[in-house]
């Protein structure tokens, strides 16, 4: 008796609430963050910054959602699609399965997935040429190195991170054929993204092998790498966002992966987002190296000239950086 009463009351309440919230809801673009959370100082936060920049410039609002479990992936996509949000942007390769399942049910909604390819007529897949950006910072590393030994600390050992490492090694060897490149991965499990202590240990080990420039492509682990490099007086290279400010004068540069630009452009295009495969490389501002007041003293005019020349020839197609993910091999680095 009591229970049916409660149920009845809940349903009545729900109906009232439903009518109250159904109207007044503006359906603009939506963004869904991956499990790392919105403020991860890296990938998700970069996506958020892009969305925020669009909102500020246009005085508009966007819907957003932070999932707390994998079970919510498909739910989040469907929820925004049914609410009329368009386009719906999601950051991270883990969205592919859920999006592949859900996208077919909403042919009029445009979806954007970053870092992974989903082949559907209403999905725009944005991937970055991380190997090209890494090539540029690899050149800078080899130029800045006095020991001719440079190193790399990756997060989880997945093809995407090997792509960073392989591009970096190619860049270093292009600038200095005698350079030695040491590459280490933090681990093979997701915890490798957030293990600054291990990152610090790997850096110390690389320093003992002679490295004096270290590139971290390791999410939260990279914070430990940059810290140890600064403590030990060697140079480091940040990743994804511009991390030069973390240790002014001690971070050589950052390999910028402009997730924010990808989100911003998708939001700006609105429901006119063009589906299909989209590559963000050096040419269209997708990847690059960071230069600001924090590293101006470290980057000589000569170094900058050389890197810009390489960037130009990559854009022009005169210089090809081998992409690890194209054939899962790297000509210059053993994993």
């Amino acid at each position, binding site marked *: 008796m009591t229970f049916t009463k409660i149920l009845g009351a809940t349903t009545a309440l*729900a*109906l009232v609430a*439903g009518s109250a919230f159904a109207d007044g809801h503006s359906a603009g673009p939506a963004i869904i963050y991956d499990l790392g959370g919105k403020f991860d100082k890296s990938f998700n936060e970069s996506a958020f910054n892009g969305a925020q920049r669009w909102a500020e410039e246009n005085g508009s609002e966007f819907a957003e959602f932070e999932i707390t479990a*994998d079970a919510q992936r498909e739910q989040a996509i469907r929820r925004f699609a049914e609410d009329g949000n368009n386009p719906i942007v999601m950051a991270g390769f883990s969205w592919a*399965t859920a999006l592949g399942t859900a996208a077919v049910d909403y042919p009029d909604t445009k979806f954007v997935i970053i870092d992974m390819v989903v082949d559907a007529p209403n999905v725009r897949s944005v991937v970055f040429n991380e190997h090209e950006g890494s090539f540029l910072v690899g050149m800078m590393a080899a130029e800045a190195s006095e020991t001719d030994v440079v190193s790399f600390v990756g997060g989880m050992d997945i093809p*995407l991170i090997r792509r960073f490492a392989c591009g970096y090694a190619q860049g270093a060897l292009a600038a200095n054929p005698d350079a030695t490149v040491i590459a280490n991965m933090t681990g093979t*499990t997701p915890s490798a993204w957030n293990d600054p202590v291990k990152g610090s240990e790997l850096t110390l080990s690389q320093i003992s092998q002679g490295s004096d420039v270290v590139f971290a492509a390791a999410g939260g682990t990279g914070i430990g790498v940059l810290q140890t490099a600064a403590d030990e007086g060697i140079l480091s290279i940040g990743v994804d966002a511009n991390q030069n400010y973390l240790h002014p004068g001690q971070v050589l540069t950052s390999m910028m992966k402009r997730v924010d630009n990808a989100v911003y452009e998708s939001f700006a295009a609105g429901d006119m987002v063009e589906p299909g495969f989209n590559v963000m490389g050096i040419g269209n501002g997708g990847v690059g190296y960071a230069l600001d007041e924090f590293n101006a003293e470290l980057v000589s005019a000569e170094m900058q000239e050389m890197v810009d020349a390489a960037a130009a020839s990559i854009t022009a197609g005169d210089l090809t950086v081998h992409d690890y993910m194209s054939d899962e091999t790297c000509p210059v680095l053993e994993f």
Partner: protein
Amino acid sequence: MDAMPKWADVVLVPVVSLLLAAIISAIVFVAVGQNPWDALKLMAYGAVGTSDFLGYTLFYATNFIFTGLAVAVAFHASLFNIGGEGQVLLGGLGAAIVCLYVPLPHWSLALIAGATAAAIFGALWVVIPAYLQARRGSHIVITTIMFNFMASGLLIFFLSGPMKPIGEMQVATAVFPAATHLPSLHDVAQMFGSEMFGRSPVNISIFLALIACVGVWALIWHTRLGYEIRSFGKSESAAKYAGISAVNITMVALLISGGLAGLMAVNNTMGINSPQLVDNAAGGAGFIGIAVALMGRNHPVGIVIAALLFGALYQGGAELSAATSIPVQIVVVIQALVIMFTGALDEMVRAPIEKLFLRSQRAGE
């Protein structure tokens, strides 16, 4: 115990606990600048407002029924199995192995084989803690919680190594073959010409959960084993005096508990729209099961009601953070408050109510 009538124990105490949680939640909402009444309405709408939302609520409730039953069976033997989280993960591993590597021609066979494998894997994961408790007196709380970490590590090993599809970067298995996909309730509704539950993942394993409820009820109150479990739980020394083997009962109760937790994998791994095993498949359901069992007074009927409530809370909370600017962390705080008041602080509410009844009885005499 005799101080309170049964209705007070079963209804009044949980309701008062919920009210207290609601009051504190309201304060939290006001503190972050939200209208608590609007938030409550939105949560209720998010939980049952559309048949899709209802479907998600039932999907999460199915998870919590399994873990709630798992905790309850162990509770009847006075054992505190907080390893549900790990047992769910291992259950998922069992279900995934069966679905991926055994060519099953039809979903009904997949359901039977997957459920069996999930229950066996879940039960096996509790064998060592159960043995250590029964024979060596190592506390089950400590061992099961440590086994949660090991389960998580073991699962990640499999998902980022042997079971990972080539070229994939997500820490997950491949999607299970189409023949093993369990029908969703939407598929069932469509047979009757209804579009109920939309594309929500609630699936036929909710019936498995209800069957498990009946099974647990029959086991605990209508079999000799159930009687032995309860007597052991009430008084270990009396049970021993009556010739009940402490070792056997500890082992059996915990194995059943682990098996029930493992069964949750049928719902959250095999039953979803694109079934695959992911690295955090349990998603906290093992711990929520503790609150569900406490609130449901370890009785299947109570567990179903409590699981529905927590399912609604989980789904309504997700809708709340999606539809408003309330940060997801605040929603987690609200959910935790309800768990804390109904689960951990149960005695805090119970003792004063008991006193009140005692006093009124004395006044009546």
